[in-house]
């Protein structure tokens, strides 16, 4: 295991979180957008509420445009991708140029989507590049410590987002199981008590999503 600074540890973790946030929110957005076409135009309101982001949008079209592409909206997908890039670009020597290039490609794809007449088609390329990024993380980062921190960020973000969106218990359970397997491989300090509580919450008959979000956010010390 190579030496790694506190700052890089933090950047690796947030690279994992933001890349996952981009991927999953794009996926959720695509589903919601489809529904907003002709079923429930106001569905974005519920989406914002669950995500705990302010509903600053005037219509479904405004939501589609600004939630995806408004760089001044700190909750937009493009802002989250910029944060993923900001963390990745300072980690070249930890993750390698090839790994970094997939985040760079996602940025280019996002900028292209922003200008496109059919942005949903182009946004698929952003997701493809994020998936490729995760693949290359597994394939080419030899340092398990570095790899595990990125993946821990990804897992925590996914559980957080899934819980906020009240996803199926089975899906959440799968992600929490992966989180359990990963967290000890990072060398990072976390609350074992909270981890045990998360494991308990997911088994409860009446799943308390809000409490789960609170616990996952406070897991790392």
């Amino acid at each position, binding site marked *: 295991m190579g*030496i790694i*600074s506190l*700052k890089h540890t933090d950047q690796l973790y947030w690279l994992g979180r933001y890349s996952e946030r981009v991927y999953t929110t794009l996926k959720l957005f695509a589903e919601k957008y489809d529904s907003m076409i002709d079923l429930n135009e106001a569905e974005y309101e519920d989406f914002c509420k669950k995500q705990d982001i302010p509903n600053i949008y005037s219509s479904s079209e405004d939501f589609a445009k600004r939630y995806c592409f408004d760089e001044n909206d700190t909750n937009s997908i493009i802002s989250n991708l910029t944060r993923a890039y900001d963390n990745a*670009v*300072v980690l*070249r*020597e930890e993750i390698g140029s090839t790994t*970094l290039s997939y985040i*760079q490609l996602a940025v280019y794809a996002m900028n292209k989507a922003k200008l496109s007449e059919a942005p949903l088609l182009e946004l698929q390329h952003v997701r493809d590049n994020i998936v490729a990024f995760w693949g290359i993380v597994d394939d080419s980062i030899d340092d398990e410590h570095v790899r595990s921190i990125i993946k821990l960020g990804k897992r925590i973000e996914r559980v957080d987002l899934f819980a906020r969106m009240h996803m199926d218990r089975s899906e959440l359970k799968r992600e929490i199981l992966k989180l359990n397997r990963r967290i000890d491989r990072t*060398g990072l300090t976390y609350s074992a008590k909270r981890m045990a509580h998360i494991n308990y919450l997911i088994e409860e008959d009446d799943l308390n999503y809000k409490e789960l979000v609170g616990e996952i956010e406070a897991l790392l010390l």
Partner: protein
Amino acid sequence: MYTKNLCIYSDSVNELLARYGVKFGIYKDNTFHEQLFPFDMIPRVISAEEFAYIERGLKQRIKALNLFIEDIYHNKRIIHDKIIPEEFVYAGSGYLAQCEGVSPPRGIYTHIAGIDLVQAKDGTWYILEDNLRIPSGASYPMIARDLCRKCSPQTFRDNHLEDNRNYAKLLRKTFDYVNTEGHTVILTPGRYNAAYFEHSYLAEQTGAHLVNGHELTVEDDKLYFVDFSGKKERVGVVYRRISDEYLDPMNFKEESLIGIPHIYDVYRKGNVALINAPGNGVADDKGIYYFVPKMINYYLGEEAVLKNAPTYLPYYQEDLEYVLMHFDDLVIKDVAEAGGYGVFFGNKLENKAKESFKELIKAEPRRFIAQEVIDFRDIDIMEHGEFVPRKADLRAFVLMAEEPMVWKSGLTRFSRNPDSFIVNSSQGGGFKDTWVLSR
């Protein structure tokens, strides 16, 4: 002849360069912008014989410059022997009094030198500038070569070239030679530095750790890297990409937020190597450049292999008179400026500006040098599918371990503007690979 198959991949290679984030940063209106560095597929080609000559000249020059820096901060023989006037040494901004009497590990000051050359139309190579502080640019041809080989393997099968992808190995050798037992780190001011891509790429390629100042700490006259758990690991080499004055707020500019307090004290005690050594600016000042052939003669007892561009120092009365008389034929350079700034072509100035400039030279003769305008040999670039000639220079890199090592390649920078001699990336220039033929 060499590049027929290569040129058709111009767009692909530039797309790959964008993919790998091969950029440089510039500040415009106080805002940071990242820009792609335009790459032209047609390489500069240098024959094995010609490069052997350049190599010989560069090694000689670096040896002399290293001896000069050592001399200035210790015995000052070259001043006592009146080879160089002392005001040229001490009045320059590159001279640092803090370096007096300090010896770097293994006596090396100029670990990495970037020497700018141009080739005149008659084929003569001239040295334009020595960069001995933080020369940048090697990473660009290095990664470009790698991508070109992927696009057109046949080109590299047909042409027998020196492989320039060994730069990281040379750099590692340079680091290891002066290591005072510890990790090797590359110290960057951060991602908003113009050359951040290079910092991160060289860290990746050499296996060094890329760090900011606050990740290093000094304790008991040693330098340490602090890991995420608070554990300290000794650092033996710092390839610092921040300038002398910001390196250590306790020894240089106290307002520096990017430096490491007391790192210079660790260096002074021989407990860490700083690459390049602080104080090197005393030798790459544009005013000192004039004296390099004299240095070579003084320290090595040899004539300079590579020529300086014909240069005049208005500091000397005779030269001042020549400069004023032949103003229109000369290029005037402000010795305090870099990056293509502070360069004025006499014939391009309006009459009024010309006269006030002449007065300024008379008032501050030490501040300027004047050079004959060398008619560079043009090099073709591809523009909109056509070959067009442009001015270009060559930055050659010399690394110093036990002996100077000349990297068998270099950064060829060209002006995209047909009427300009300025090739700097910050002023819109592009770059080419530099091929050195192996036979």
